């Protein structure tokens, strides 16, 4: 009898247990690691967070040392010229001007990272336009900021994937998405003309609507937007526009925006670097780690890749009293060795901030534009404002015509070396070519002829394979 009772009790208990699976059993676990779009667009704080995410992504660690952040695009351009020599380490293929295939990481990185940022800005713009919980002033400001970023990366794509604008604006350019791709689906190639029109539209909107306010100097304000616009006009040879934008970017008063005593501070601290209009601000816990070019490649004093050296011919351009002459023969190398000169311009640490745009560049755009606008005197003045600031013994230029332009371009190289690929940028937009001289590790084979195809990259194979509107022919004759 006793057994029967136990048996029955157990049966009841077990059947109860077997059939009483909690209704919420499958509803309870929630995704805890993401944030829903409703939250993001429901407040200014939310949209600010989205903008901050985009700003952070500009200095993302995308895949490897030579493909991380906007600064990697810049530095890859730096090593393509004649001034910088790169050891056989990261960026070696850029240095050889041989890193442009459809399957090359360089092509994929430049393409993918730019488009990721573009789509995020598109999504932000769309969300901000329809957000109901934000003020209209804020709405305009944040959209203007997003448009500036969008235009800036379309400008990078236009430069990296085609001849320069003035070569032939009707040439195919990368696809142009004016709204989130989730609305439109993939698109085919655009033209340089369409792309530059859209870039200008965005940047003009940004320059007209942004103020000088911003959260930090890693964000975009009206000065940065003007600086971007100045570079675009420079490329399009719109010299009136370039002059106006450059002046708006630096403010027009050369005395108040140049700080020569900061040139040798290691280029690693945006707070101590008043010339920086825009920079990637790195901290202990938010940084690119071992991928922070140029610092991680160029610094020979702390552990880094020890990759950056300088052409004797370039070093010889500097006078000894120039504050920018930060070269030394660290390895006691003989003159014909490529590792003869290294620079102390960049001090690497994980916290090293990275310059993205400086007032000195804007001054030089101003001078260059004034030259093209026929205003030689003012061009001399603006140029000398910079030269005398950098070198107390500088002598004011008396050059005219091409000589003056060449002097301005040399000044750009001396001022901006290893920062943004100035030499490549100038050679490309002036359709000049770059001839390797001096003690290069790879000399003549890496020289670029005017309008050399190696000034631009092939369209990534992955895009061709997955985009129904782009086929193999896009890389024909590229």
């Amino acid at each position, binding site marked *: 009898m006793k*057994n029967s009772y136990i048996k029955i009790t157990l049966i009841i208990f077990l059947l109860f247990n077997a059939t009483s699976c909690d209704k919420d059993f499958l509803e309870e676990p929630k995704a805890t690691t993401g944030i829903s779009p409703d939250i*993001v667009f429901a407040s200014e704080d939310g949209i600010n967070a989205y903008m901050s995410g985009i700003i952070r992504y500009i200095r993302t660690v995308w895949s490897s040392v030579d493909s991380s952040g906007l600064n990697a695009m810049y530095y890859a351009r730096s090593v393509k010229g004649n001034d910088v020599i790169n050891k056989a380490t990261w960026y070696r293929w850029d240095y*050889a001007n041989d890193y442009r295939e459809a399957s090359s990481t360089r092509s994929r990185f430049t393409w993918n990272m730019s488009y990721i940022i573009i789509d995020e800005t598109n999504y932000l713009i769309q969300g901000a336009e329809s957000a109901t919980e934000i003020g209209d002033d804020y709405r305009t400001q944040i959209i203007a900021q997003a448009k500036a970023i969008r235009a800036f990366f379309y400008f990078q794509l236009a430069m990296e994937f085609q001849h320069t604008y003035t070569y032939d604006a009707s040439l195919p350019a990368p*696809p142009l998405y004016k709204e989130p791709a989730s609305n439109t689906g993939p698109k085919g190639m655009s033209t340089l003309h369409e792309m530059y029109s859209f870039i200008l539209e965005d940047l003009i909107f940004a320059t007209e609507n942004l103020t000088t306010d911003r959260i*930090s100097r890693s964000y975009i304000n009206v000065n940065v937007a003007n600086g971007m616009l100045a570079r675009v006009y420079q490329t399009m040879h719109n010299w009136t526009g370039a002059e106006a934008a450059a002046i708006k970017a630096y403010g027009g008063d050369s005395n108040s925006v140049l700080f020569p005593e900061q040139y040798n501070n290691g280029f690693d601290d945006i707070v101590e670097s008043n010339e920086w209009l825009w920079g990637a601000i790195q901290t202990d816990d938010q940084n690119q780690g071992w991928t922070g070019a140029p610092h991680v490649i160029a610094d020979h004093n702390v552990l880094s890749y020890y990759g950056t050296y300088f052409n004797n011919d370039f070093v010889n351009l500097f006078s000894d009293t120039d504050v920018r002459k930060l070269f030394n023969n660290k390895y006691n190398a*003989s003159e014909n060795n490529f590792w003869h000169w290294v620079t102390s311009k960049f001090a690497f640490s994980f916290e090293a901030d990275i310059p993205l745009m400086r007032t000195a560049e804007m001054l030089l755009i101003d001078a260059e534009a004034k030259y093209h606008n026929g205003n030689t005197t003012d061009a001399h003045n603006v140029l000398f404002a910079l030269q005398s600031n950098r070198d107390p013994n500088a002598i004011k230029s008396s050059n005219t015509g091409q000589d003056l332009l060449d002097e301005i371009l040399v000044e750009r190289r001396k001022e901006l070396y290893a920062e943004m690929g100035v030499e490549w940028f100038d050679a490309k937009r002036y359709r000049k070519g770059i001839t390797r001289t001096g003690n290069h590790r790879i000399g003549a084979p890496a020289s670029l002829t005017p309008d050399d195809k190696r000034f631009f990259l092939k369209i990534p194979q992955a895009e061709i394979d997955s985009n129904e509107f782009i086929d193999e022919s896009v890389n024909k004759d590229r």
Partner: protein
Amino acid sequence: MYEIKRFDQKHIGKFLTKKNELTSKLKIMNKKLFRNYSIPSKVKTLASIAFLFLFLSVVQLYGNTIQEREISGKITDTNGISLPGVSIAIRGTTKGVQSDFEGNYSIKASTGQQLIFTYIGMKAINIIIDSSSTINIKMEESSENLDEVVVVAYGKQSKKSIVGSVVVVGEEIIKKQNATTITTAIQGSVPGVTMIASGGQPGANPTIRIRGIGSISGSASPLFIVDGAPYNGNINVFSADQIASITVLKDASSTALYGSRAANGVILITTKQGKRNTSPRVTIKSTVGLSNQAITPHKTLNTDQQFTASWEALRNTGLYVNGEDAATSANNATTGLLDFLRYNPYGPTVTEPVDSNGNLVSSTKLWETDWRDVFFNDSAIRKEHSLSVSGGSENTTIFLSANYLNQEGSIKTSNFERITTRLNLNTNVNKWFSAGLGVSYSTSKQNTPIQSGTSTESATNWAWKISSIYPLYQRDENGAIMLDALGNRISDYGSRASQAINGQRPFSPNQNAYSQLFVNDSKNTRDDITLNGNFKIAFSDNLNFTTRLSHTNFLYDSFGYYSSEFGSAVGTKGSVTQTRDAYITTNLTNSLNYSKNFGNHNIAASLMQEAYKYKNKNLSATGIGFLPNSKTLTNSTTPEDVSGYDVETRIESYLGRLTYNYKNKYFLEGSYRRDGTTRFSSENRWGNFFSVGGSWVISDEPFLENSEILNYFKLKASYGELGNSDGIGNFPYITSFLAGYNEGDQTGVLLAFPNDPNITWEKTASFNAGLDFGLFNSALKGTVEYYNRESIDLFYNVPTPASTGATSFTTNAGSLRNYGLEISLDSKNVSNKNFEWTSSFNISFGKNEILELTQKQFISGTKRWEVGKSLYEFYIREYAGVDIDTGEALWYADILDTEGEPTGERETTNDFGDATRYDTGKSSLPKFYGGFTNYLRFGNFDMNILLNYSFGSYIYDTSYASLMHSYGSAGTAASIDLLDRWQQPGDITNVPRLLNSNNNYNSTSDRFLFKNDYVRLKAVNIGYNLPTTALSNYGITGLRLFLQGDNLATFQSHKGIDPEQSLSGTTNQRALNQRTYSFGVNLEF
């Protein structure tokens, strides 16, 4: 009870006294407990019930003894060899005993009762007891091990009744290898299982794929079930000596009951249990061994050759690239050589080690470092000791075991140390109630220095690639060893800018991977606690109810320390990253089982319900800024990073299985499972999975019944549809903003790549057909099976144009097919009292085919995925040799017509970028593979030899490619094959010129794609069993001495790397597999 016999006479009295005392005490307790016991009205956990009943049953272990006559005898096989472990039961009772080591048994029974003798592989014998008290038995082998019971999904089945594809790796296979990670024991013994060992880190798990690769972006790994419960920890927590069997379920009919997780096969691991009616048996096993490297890596140039080759590379660059004349380029190479290599092992007197003719000036050296000798541990010690106690009374069984393992890895400092303990208890409380509990705890420590990849701190990257011209310890400009203030040698980190010679190493400056083995830490600790309880209520002979509750708490702690004094973290004064993951799995299964025979019709049915919870709780922190030798997170100056999350997956399931057979000749089986999972949105989370199968034992038909040749013949076929939901995260259907993109003090978020909100299971339709046969009185047995698995709606990160801002969209798309043939044969070649020889052989053929993609094709690494091709076929450039005039490497390129389409003609090009990639028709998957085992016994000696093999696959040897550089960068070790390089116009060779400037000579092409056939002597076990007669005086029932060898020899078509690298056939500079020689003792009493 026969156990008494096993004690020395003088102890018996004592034992009996003690036992009687104990029995009476326990009987009192027993009564009291029953009097006071009633089922609590609210039982909160099943486990507590299980525990309680267990306790009660232990009490019952000392049950009553009935005074009856003693029957005894000896059991042998037809050769007269005694059979230990034969079960002897009395029909109609629960009483039974087992024969001892010498085949003797003794059981108390009365005249007229029937004794049943059963033993695996032997025909059962029934004897009715007459007046005699001695019954000697000679057992015959059964034609087929048909009565053998194997563990299958949610239960056990006899071998004969299985309609699908199930392979058991039993204890006898497991114990003849050093299976540090138990799954390695499957290799070579189960057809259809592809296994790739993971290198020389002990405790690392092999890659396992069952019947091909059934997923693209999801997980294609099998599901692991341990003692009936899904296991989510690391499979390396188990020790081989505690495993009774590993069952591999391959087809749908055997796996369908695991429904949504079964698509890639299931591996059931069953731990040992005690046997009923056996006295406690203690087994002590101890093995000690030494390991070195299983293969010899690629040979490299010595220091002298490195110098002359580097000279030649510099000269060639001047001559062919920079346009210098011969004399200038040679001179520059001579003067620039030390500037290039930076170290001078020839000493300060030799300022230009290579003259302008390219000849060495001196070959006297201050050092020449054998870096492989530095890194490789060629006398790695492996120790394993275990102790287990196993036994059982009439109603209760117990298995208790502890195992200790300590194994050093192939790279110095790499190791694995583990302690595993397990207790399995089972009891029949009474006729209708039984319960069991398994408790295990495993803890391990593992040091895992970086031993793959190209990190500048990777031990293997160094071992493969650094040239012998660099010293291990600091040398001054004159090459003399430098000492620190304490007189110790200083590891050379190669970054002393002040020292022009012997101070600045171009290869990995500021690193010394050897020193970093000791100053850095990379430690994993794992703790696994599993409780697995069950009870079963038999409502009647035909109906029972079983509940199983299991809970595993697996804690994984990974600790990484980078030194504050040396290497990459000097700038941050050291860094510590510690990550702790708890993986908590709870699984509850209730099942109602019914079986009944209606004459010749036999039916069995089960209904089950299952609830599964799997939680991952993660916490990770990084701190920087440490004092030397201080490695605790809390001592950091700057806490750098903190992250953590809790995620959970749950599955709710309803299952059913119905089996029917007629006359044990025609078998039909169907199973069904309905799963609901949290992995998918509420609209898509329920899925149905099923299988049907049948078999026909033709040999039981009258026309074959008396066949002399074909004594067993069975046809079987099954079909089913299964699912897979692993490998794409916990909430793959949600596209959300990702946190973590903070900018300064601003919170930052970004929109993630889009996912399909309607994503759901991968589905695999699996068909299996096969036959089992036995020939010549089962001297030759075998199985042949054909399978076809089609996997559709694969989890697929569909490549999307990157211009859309996302490179992939995760959804269900694409379809794959895996099909093949598996054959296994077992033969009994010789069998008599003094000599026995058995062989087993298996071979598997398998193919992988893409049936559907979302785009025509796309490139995935070295492969191009295209409909109709395999996922694993190499698609790379084709090497066209060396230009005889220039020494440049050439590749093939298609000649294009004006439309840009290939004309079909090919040309050679020296521009790698212009070269065309081709379908090579060569796959990284083998055409066939398998294993071959031979067991030989001569008297008391035995030997087991296990070979595994693989043919028809190709491997892209990146390691070799990286040794076939042309001195573009300084100080990298190079293959001796560079001696065959092109040196001057007219040279006919396959190795391009040396060149110290960027080139693509060793870029990815079929130049480094090699046939990868191999046969490996995976395990050899030679043992001697001491005669039991010699041992019994010492109370010992068995003593075995054995030699064990693992990976003793490898015969391979491409030498220099281990043949087992990766499914995709690419290499990653991984540590070499270990070859192990061990000696062991196995003692039972």
